[in-house]
């Protein structure tokens, strides 16, 4: 086992502030004219979307609808992963037709999750526009996908692991990065 070290990328306070900033950015860029809706990608995209919605509510008084998307059935690696990932329901109680949607996820990496999410969304209807908001963009895209709203960009190596902890799921707010130890001595 190569030694790996974990370092903190964002503290609890920084995580909270970053999410809040993202909420304000969404307000600035979308204004209040169009009915936007947030779509949280299971799992950690969901509490993130809820927090963004409460920031938007505090800033504008507008209630932004939140949907929940499960992308398991749209994954392109189902035949590669061991066992069967548990499928969960989508929970989107509004029509996505002609809506401005913002997909919300914790980490943007290869872009494959987002590809799956876009496929899932289009099975539900025809949104007017789909944008992406992520807490951390760690690079290494394998698809032409970019986020309109990024909390923090970080340089990583493909084998590094970025861990997002959120109060609602993990009991604490924190972003950690576990880097593989340098392979060669200087």
């Amino acid at each position, binding site marked *: 086992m190569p030694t790996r070290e974990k370092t903190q990328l964002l503290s609890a306070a920084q995580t909270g502030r970053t999410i809040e900033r993202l909420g304000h950015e969404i307000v600035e860029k979308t204004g209040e004219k169009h009915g936007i809706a947030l779509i949280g990608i299971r799992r950690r995209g969901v509490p993130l979307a809820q927090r963004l919605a409460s920031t938007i509510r505090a800033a504008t008084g507008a209630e932004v609808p939140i949907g929940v998307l499960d992308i398991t059935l749209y994954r392109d690696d189902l035949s590669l992963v061991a066992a069967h990932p548990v499928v969960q329901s989508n929970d989107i109680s509004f029509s996505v037709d002609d809506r401005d949607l913002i997909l919300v996820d914790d980490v943007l990496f*290869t872009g494959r999750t987002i590809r799956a999410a876009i496929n899932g969304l289009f099975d539900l209807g025809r949104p007017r526009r789909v944008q992406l908001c992520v807490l951390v963009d760690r690079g290494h895209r394998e698809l032409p996908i970019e986020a309109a709203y990024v909390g923090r960009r970080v340089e990583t190596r493909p084998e590094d692991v970025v861990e997002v902890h959120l109060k609602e799921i993990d009991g604490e707010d924190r972003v950690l990065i576990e880097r593989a130890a340098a392979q060669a001595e200087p």
Partner: protein
Amino acid sequence: MSFILRHLLGTESLSRDELAFLLDQSRAFQGIQKQPLKKLATLRGKSVVLAFFETSTRTRISFGTAAARLGADTMNLQAESSSTQKGESLSDTVRTLEAMKPDVIVIRHAASGAPHFIAERLGIPVVNAGDGLHEHPTQGLLDALTISDRLGRLDNLNFTIVGDIRHSRVARSNIHVLSKFGCRTTLCGPAMWLPPEMSCIAPNVRIEPRLEEALRDAHIVMVLRVQTERLREPALPADEYIRLYQMTPARLALARPDAVLMHPGPMIRGLEIDPAVADSPQSAVLEQVTNGVAVRMAVLYLLAGGAPSAGASPAGSAAD
């Protein structure tokens, strides 16, 4: 919880937790039945053999629809029920199926235990779509899903089945599912279709020949189809059956006011069921059909969705 499903041969051998997991996965697929676009690509490139050695339209179409909605291809192998009776050996059947190199085999066979025989000999997941008088597990699951949708729970319900219990694999699969959730089953029907040993197949099963008694306090009333050819052995005139056992509004009123009325289909209106009951708000017959597709999608997904030689690993662990 999550567990690795290798085959779905019956509900008897599944634990309560395993059944609850299968129902939970089926719920995720219920949502897809309501989407504008119901077709997924999840099982693209996989193939499902539908081997029906006994005539069936509804179950075959339901499995076919489930496979199609997951993007899998289906191959139909339909043998006349008479040809199996003429003696095609199950081993030959197994070889035929294997030669098609499918990812899942769905089999209906007149011989009880045929799917188990095949599952033991092939390294391919097998789904029992009805074997003789033994089991019809996806029906048991879809009925449980329908009940929990209607009543909001599955635990500790009173479950009454009326009709030809002896020849009903649907009854058996249902009893095995519901008894795991602590339900109490009451079986009712003509004595010739009510073998006393049925009360021993699971806990809390009793036989009650008097229909009025059997219906009292029932949360679920399941009416089984009368196969008219079976009325001849021994003789029971159809009008006698109607007089004694047909589910009428007056009889259904003896059950709880919110009782769910179920029928595995196809219904014969005017024989085992009064049309007024079949079309009443208490009837969940069409929900059963819709849920059948969701349950079968879940089962096919669980059997064919993972890697071919999937080992145990925490489900849903990998994602970017």
